[in-house]
């Protein structure tokens, strides 16, 4: 078994993913079948956000990946120019 920080980080990731999965499942799949006067609706944003938020997060991720690739490529270009 892995030890120390490895275990903590790994189990933390598992917990986060389970949390996101259950919240999102309740939001998208279960809420439409629950009577609109029930108190549980207080804990969930309007349904439009169920698509808007993952979309925004996905675009942000793509942005980070693009910025990272750009930085690495610029750094390589600078090193190559210095070596000439």
């Amino acid at each position, binding site marked *: 078994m892995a030890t120390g920080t490895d275990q903590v*980080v*790994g189990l933390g*990731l598992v917990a986060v993913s389970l949390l996101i999965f259950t919240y*999102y499942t309740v939001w*998208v*799949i279960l809420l439409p079948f629950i009577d609109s006067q029930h108190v549980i609706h207080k804990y969930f944003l309007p349904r439009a956000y169920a698509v808007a938020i*993952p*979309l925004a997060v996905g675009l942000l991720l793509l942005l980070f990946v693009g910025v990272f690739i750009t930085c690495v490529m610029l750094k390589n270009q600078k090193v190559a120019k210095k070596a000439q």
Partner: protein
Amino acid sequence: MTKLAQWLWGLALLGSTWAALTMGPTLGLELPLTCREVLWPLPAYLLVTVGCFALGTVGYRVATFNDCEGAALELQTQIQEARADLARKGLRF
């Protein structure tokens, strides 16, 4: 058929089914309101589910990966030897 073609084919099939069902009412198909409410965010839901599954699997494998103390020490000594050897031969780090 290549794996890519299979995946694209499956995605196209699911995507067209979803599109047909969500745009159904504009073409005359009537589904109960709750079904339509669950149906239209489905692609986003499937993406988030796959992402969560991937994250969870990575986390689980990180937590259960076996440490090999002996191999780690051996590797460290080999790295030191290699560095000393190459430094002697003139390679600068």
